[in-house]
């Protein structure tokens, strides 16, 4: 996600004023994370995820004037998306993570619970349900944590490069990464325990 040049309230005002550049930035900056957030909460159903992401963006426009800055715009968007997902689940029996993981091997579960204590066996990393869990975990993190982890471990940026991208100093970037790892570990463990309670 690109850093937002405007604060969230300023961004809201720019959107309300019809600022196209701000709108493009808002849309492009949030689409990926929001899509992933929804994707893992509707059982990876692409058609449903697309519908709900679209509904979320349009509802956000409708209610934009009610955004009061008490949370980040991303959190607020995710809140709208959660309501959409809840409504969708009421209408149609959803495919939960619970279902996806129903076949998970209890031994695998025990191993995954040790994510902050023991190195994970290679075989576990290859499993589809592990991939689902990683995606679901990332999609539950605040955007800056998610971004830090992806930059560090997927894009393989150095801490200095991460700092330059986020406009922070290196120490702050390292600190964000540290907190992101802890949060990842906690949410990952929580999801494994709950076996699908991702919403």
């Amino acid at each position: 996600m690109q850093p937002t040049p405007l604060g969230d309230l300023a961004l809201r005002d720019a959107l309300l004023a019809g600022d196209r550049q701000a709108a493009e930035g808002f849309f492009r900056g949030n689409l990926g994370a929001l899509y992933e957030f929804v994707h893992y909460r509707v059982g990876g159903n692409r058609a449903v995820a697309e519908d709900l992401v679209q509904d979320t963006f349009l509802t956000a426009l409708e209610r934009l004037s009610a955004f009061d800055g008490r949370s980040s715009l991303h959190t607020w968007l995710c809140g709208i998306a959660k309501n959409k997902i809840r409504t969708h689940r009421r209408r149609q029996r959803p495919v939960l993570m619970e279902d996806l993981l129903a076949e998970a091997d209890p031994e695998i579960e025990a191993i995954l619970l040790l994510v902050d204590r023991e190195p994970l066996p290679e075989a576990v990393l290859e499993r589809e349900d592990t991939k689902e869990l990683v995606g679901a975990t990332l999609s539950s993190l605040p955007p800056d944590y998610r971004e830090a982890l992806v930059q560090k471990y997927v894009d393989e940026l150095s801490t200095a490069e991460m700092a330059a991208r986020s406009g922070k100093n290196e120490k702050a970037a390292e600190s964000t990464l540290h907190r992101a790892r802890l949060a990842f570990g906690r949410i990952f463990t929580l999801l494994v325990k709950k076996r699908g309670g991702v919403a």
Partner: protein
Amino acid sequence: MKGDVLEHNVRRLLRKSYVPALPTPTFRDRLEALFLDELRRRTQAGRRRRAPVLRLALAAAAAVAALFLGWHFLAGAPAGRAELLARGAVALGLPDGRWRAASAEERAHGVAYAAPSLVAVTPEQASLHVLVADAGELFLHERSAAVLETRADGLHARIEHGRAEWLDAGGERALVPGEDTHLERAPAPDAPEDARSPAELARREPVPELAPPAVPEDAARVVLGRVVDAESGAPVTRFTVAFLRERVGNETYPPERRDFEAEDGRFRWPDPPSGKQRLFVHAPDYALCAAGELDLTQPPGGELVLELGRGADVRGLVLDEGGAPVPDALVISENEAPTDGLFFDDAEKLFWLPIQARSGPDGRFELRHLGPGLHTLRATARDLAPAWALGVAVPATEELVLRLGPGGTIEGRVTGADGGPSAGAEIVVVAMDQVQHTRMNFGVTRTDAQGEYRFERLPPTTMIVVRLGSGDRPEVVPVQVRVGQVARADFTDRRTGARVHGRLLDAAGRPIAQQNLGLFVKESSNWDQDWVASTTRDDGTFAFEGVAPGAYLVFLIDEMGKGVRCVDELAVPPEWPELAHDVRVPGGALTLRVRSAATGAPVPAAGVVLVHVDGGVSFSAHGGTDERGEFTFRDLRSGTYMAEVYPTTPGLGYRDTGPIEVDEAGPAPILEVELGEGGPVTVRVTTGDGRPLEGALVSFRDEAGDEHNFGRLPATGDDGRYKAHGLRAGTYHALARLDGYQGTPVTFRYEPGLELEIPLVLTPVPPK
């Protein structure tokens, strides 16, 4: 060590197990286009709501006036069959005894029959199709009346007078006036097939599956829904569902509503009203849920899930002008009123106002369960004029104060062609500052035996008074209401001016229906007074009554003045009783591209005014630049124009363009306008004793003597201040105008970068 393991595992999980869930490029591009389009639509709609019209604010009133062609039906005493027919409307009698006019859509495409009965009456030059689902249709000729009724044995029709034909799968047959005709027999599911007559069987044979049920409740015409608590998802067990019909043209209707009780929160509304409907749901202790628009011309989809939130509260105080508490005042949020309009008083008697509060003996009120966002609150109380609080943010932290004053009065007399009193004439008064409100505020009355009418306790603002005449053309008079004073608006059928009539045609010569038109005195310096309004019929015809001799400009006016452009002009010679004049909408266009001279960046949200400069200067049209700094004027006549551009972007100054030719037959010219340096100036208008004056209109005259308005409605706020954006360096005279006041312009010099507040004093005009 624990941290190292976590770091190691997170690294491996992300590298080996992370497969990003990405939106497809097609979806991303489509949604981005949709999102940006929706944003633009909303922004433009918002600007239209917030931004009244420069100079032609009164032109908007013409459209407002025409609105009452439709309001008529719900205002005051219900319109009767004869009255509707006299106005050229098709009258529809509903099962509950009320009458309504068929909409333009129903007149064009047919009215849907709904059991148990319908009476349809056509006037001259109007016919009607009545569509009976799955059975057939009745065609009613002009000046005819039919009664359709569903009885135990099926559908019957009786033609009261005139002519009608019934058309179904068996063919077409004329119905005999005065005779009861059995159109469709109700099926008897348990009866053997051969129990029906051979004739009936023969007639049914081609489409046997279309036989209507005894009670025609078409499964495809059922709205199903479930109402749940937004937070917990638990069902809401007692609630009201309402459908408010889409506003079509100038017509609007009260909502249809039903109460439901269900343990599982489910409701079922068979045979809902047809057409596009806005859906509302309300339950005690919840905010009103405005669930958006449903297109009930299509079969409703699956079960709707409607989530009710608790909303937030606003507390406040209702005081009179002396600061004393006003008990028992009705306080509502206009935003939470499922209607397009509200009476000035007694609104609760006719409109459904589920969210409302009453002030206590100490004047305090608590308006509960308002949805989040900005609200327009309105307070009304016995013997006082209504008052509003605009832009109230919910949830509100501070106590709100609404002050109710005594208001002013409008009265008048209606006389007939013989000069005698016209009793029972329907008179409507509408507040002109509608753009500040989310609902139309209005009053309705009828003249007494002496032909007189009177509205008291009106809020002090510009009003238009509309007389709904014997035809379908309203007569409109603008009036300024002042506190403690009586303004007058008389109407007469004794015409002293000409009747100007004709057809409005598009470039291809096709009639344009339901279009609001305004006729303005060409050389007028008083746009508030010198105009009349009309609305075209379905065949494109219009008529202006009582037009004085002189030269006029013809404007097309979209709803609430959101688009105003001059399309023609005409002259009424002295002593001509009637002038036939067709108006053809011209095809010329002109695009302005506005940029900053310093940076080259496009300038959005700049006001643009177009003036026609052939043989004198006259206002032609207005608009505002989009995000690309562009605006295109359309429907222009060939000729020479000049544009004035008023930026709202900080740091830029206004600019007048040079003359530019528009040729309907040629390509649309594009005019590049570069804006130089400029900035804002604030004017503060007070009375002689230092009290701020709200609502004064502020303008600036430059050294060349040209007058500039730096906004569509350049009026002072409640602190007496108005901030004009976009002055460029120079010497100006600041002027302020307010009815009933006078003052002297103040001269000042402006240089970009200066922060100026110009004091202006207006004093009351002494009584004559």
